């Protein structure tokens, strides 16, 4: 036992009568393993036979499962469907394959465990443990090898080898790291500061790609908008799929018509057209589309972490983990009465980054 390792102070307890302490051991003695109690199958041949049959039945279940799987794999139509009470409509093919595989695996598993529990020996065996630490002899031997190795290397006498080898070992991985880190991607440059919006680009409905007449935007209506040339047919024709995705990720805008008397910010009205205002739809938290607009409250809600922006207050954050207001896109109308951008965004859209300021 480990008693001898215990600090001696542990033993006395002021609460106890001194005489009781003297006569009795400090701790209870280990009574050793309790007597083995035989199981039914150990003493009753009938019970053992029953257990044997149960094990065989489970293994047979596995065989049946395997066969059902094979038959189903080749014979059932992959599109076959079935109705199960309580679950609803299901893919018959998938369910039969899954259940038969479950039987095929589970039969073996439960069979083996049942076999071990009922028929294999259940007397516990004791194995000795030895301390993890090596015997002193091994430690001394190892120390001697290390010492003679160190001496044989002559590093103690020729420190310059040690130093130069250290420097070389310290540096050799740098080319590898530089290669991979340096070539993984381009530097961000100005990309995070800019979108595809430019002065004069029409606001197009996402996904149809049709322009929007200011007069068609009724009070309270909402449009999801992309810049002209970056949505619909022209985009499919002129942009790669990658460019199209990037445009969607950065340029998406939500357009709403508010009653100007509800709006609290003059700048917001100035950047809009008769209460029609456009805001970046990329959440300033970590970039989900801020897609849920509540008409009555004029709140924009981001479904990812529930940041809430108030449309009547220049899309300021009124709740949730985002800090910054959604950037506003200045808009105006062109000669034909369509909404167009009056400028690009005047600050970076989307999640914060360190150097954005």
């Amino acid at each position: 036992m480990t008693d001898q390792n215990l600090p001696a102070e542990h033993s006395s307890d002021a609460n106890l009568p001194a005489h009781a302490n003297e006569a009795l051991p400090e701790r209870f003695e280990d009574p050793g393993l309790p007597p083995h109690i035989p199981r039914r199958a150990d003493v009753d041949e009938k019970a053992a036979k029953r257990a044997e049959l149960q094990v065989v039945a489970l293994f047979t279940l596995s065989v049946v499962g395997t066969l059902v799987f094979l038959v189903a794999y080749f014979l059932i139509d992959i599109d076959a469907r079935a109705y199960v009470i309580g679950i609803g409509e299901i893919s018959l093919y998938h369910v039969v394959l899954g259940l038969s595989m479950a039987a095929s695996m589970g039969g073996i598993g439960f069979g083996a465990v049942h076999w071990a529990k009922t028929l294999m020996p259940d007397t516990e065996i004791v194995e000795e443990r030895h301390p993890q630490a090596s015997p002193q002899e091994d430690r001394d031997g190892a120390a001697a090898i290390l010492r003679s190795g160190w001496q044989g290397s002559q590093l103690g006498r020729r420190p310059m080898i040690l130093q130069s080898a250290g420097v070389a070992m310290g540096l050799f991985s740098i080319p590898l790291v530089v290669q991979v880190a340096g070539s993984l991607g381009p530097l961000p440059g100005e990309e995070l500061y800019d979108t595809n919006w430019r002065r004069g680009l029409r606001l197009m409905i996402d996904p149809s790609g049709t322009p929007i007449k200011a007069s068609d935007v009724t009070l309270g209506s909402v449009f999801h908008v992309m810049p002209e040339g970056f949505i619909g047919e022209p985009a499919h024709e002129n942009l790669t799929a990658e460019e199209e995705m990037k445009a969607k990720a950065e340029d998406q805008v939500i357009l709403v018509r508010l009653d100007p008397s509800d709006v609290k910010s003059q700048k917001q009205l100035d950047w809009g057209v008769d209460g029609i205002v456009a805001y970046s739809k990329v959440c300033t938290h970590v970039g989900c589309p801020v897609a849920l607009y509540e008409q009555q409250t004029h709140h924009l809600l981001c479904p990812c972490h529930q940041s809430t922006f108030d449309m009547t207050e220049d899309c300021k954050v009124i709740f949730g983990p985002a800090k910054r207001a959604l950037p506003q896109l200045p808009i105006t109308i062109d000669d034909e009465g369509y909404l167009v951008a009056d400028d690009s965004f005047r600050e970076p859209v989307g999640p914060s980054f360190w150097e954005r300021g």
Partner: protein
Amino acid sequence: MSTNSGIPQGADSLRTSSSAGATATTEKADTSPKLAAPIVWSDERVGTAKGMRFLLKKVFPDHWSFLLGEVAMYSMVICLITGTFLTFWFVPSMGHVEYNGSFVPLKGVGMSEAYASTLDISFDIKGGLLIRQLHHWAALLFIVGIALHMARVFFTGAFRKPREINWVIGAVLSLLAIIEGFAGYSLPDDLLSGTGIRAMAGFMQSAPVIGSYMTFFVFGGAFPGESIIPRLFIAHVLIVPALLVGLFTAHIVLVAVHKHTQFPGPGRTDNNVVGFPLMPVYMAKAGGFFFIVFGITALISALVQINPVWVYGPYDPTQVTAGSQPDFYMWFSDGALRLLPGWLEFTVFGTTWSFNIFLGSLVLLPLVWAIIIAYPFLENWVTGDKREHHILDRPRNAPVRTAIGASAISIYLVLALACVNDIIAIKFGLSINDLTILFRAMFFIAPIITFPVVKRLCISLQRADRDLVLHGTETGRIVRTPEGEFFEVHEPLDEYTRYTLVQHDRQEPLSALEGVPTDEHGVRKPMSLGYKTRRALSDFYFKDQIQPVTPAELAAAHSHGEHDALESGHNHEALPSGQEQVGIDQGSSAK
């Protein structure tokens, strides 16, 4: 039953007739067994017999909680098998295609090859959906298994010397499992997983100084680019699995080197291991258990749909579904993001510091795992215990550790629940703002409540153990003393049951053990800051410790009619001398 034990029948008869005891397999056990030819062949080349002798007789203790690690191990194997199958059909590319498979609602829709191939696996490859579901369910089971296994190791103190290294390996494995799961979840490029990647880009971008560079390097340019899925794919099928398998191997080798821990009980000491031999019992049980885990995973995969990516549609950066949650193991991190208030972001000298984002993402995981990894070393520093421990603690016997673990779990649950705050709000018609504020408060309150409650609970359980040892179990028999007093006869515990309740070490705080340090003149010595901290922590751990009953205490309880000197003194429970022997019937209660 033990009456006919003299005439062995059934399985016992085989065993006792064999001199080899546990290894009896045939009835002709008396002829000495020979190795089969293939084993002899390999023995002559690599010494197989030596290894078999060492391995096959290794003893494994039995306890249901030891299966949790096995659940993790087996579900990892299932992930490896099914994942390899998936690579045969999955196309890790963000190249654009028009879907033309057999799922009618998406016919003609533009999408990435990754998403299209996931649809093919689900609808056009025979049994492909089953493999996908097996893969995803096994992944979830893997992470649940690891988490419960870790909890078992923590609450039983199995991380103590000499197993600290394995605790560290296990902790790293659990982190890798989460990373592996996240990477896999991102591969199909459906709307939900794409939203997860979008958030990941946002996290990385929030890192001070290097954020935008890191994002551009990882994504090969601006979000989303066309590199992230191929890169996550290589991480998911090569880099992380290689690390997982390598570390897992080290983990298992160390388990064999240390031999398994065991729960306390009669005959179990720090110098032995009591249980069943690998051959044949443990082989059948553990091997069978693999098939059980696989079978149950198949059953769930057959009946419960997971990640039906065709419902969500292909990823489109302008779309999002309300109520989008990641897989459960990421909930705590996503929950933390929901709770961190926006004012944690500020600008200084033209630079933006988004503590609201990177605290909950980039910092949270490494921080949590650093604490997990440090814990055994911290506890060891406090206890100063240099001994090897192979007997597990019953969680109640380490009340402060158990309370620390429970508080950590309470924080975890608050964060995880915060991740579903929108769903809770809708289900129960609550305001999401109120809920968020409630969860923010709970983050601090939950551990403050949990700690003392759990600690008290452990201490009461320890007291109950003491009571049981000192006064035995109630028999329901009422006896009248000659003085006319009535009391209930209590039956003393048999020595085996008792030993389990009294075997643990006394533990006392440093302040009680070492007193006030003085020099040789009896003058108080100044304590170093480190030592003071250690003493304070030791007090924190052990000052309310309930010590195990000693033989002297038990004797006192039996001999004194009144024993109010004893700690948990109830009045009528001491047995008058002479009644002590009533009804001791060892072993009969075990059946």
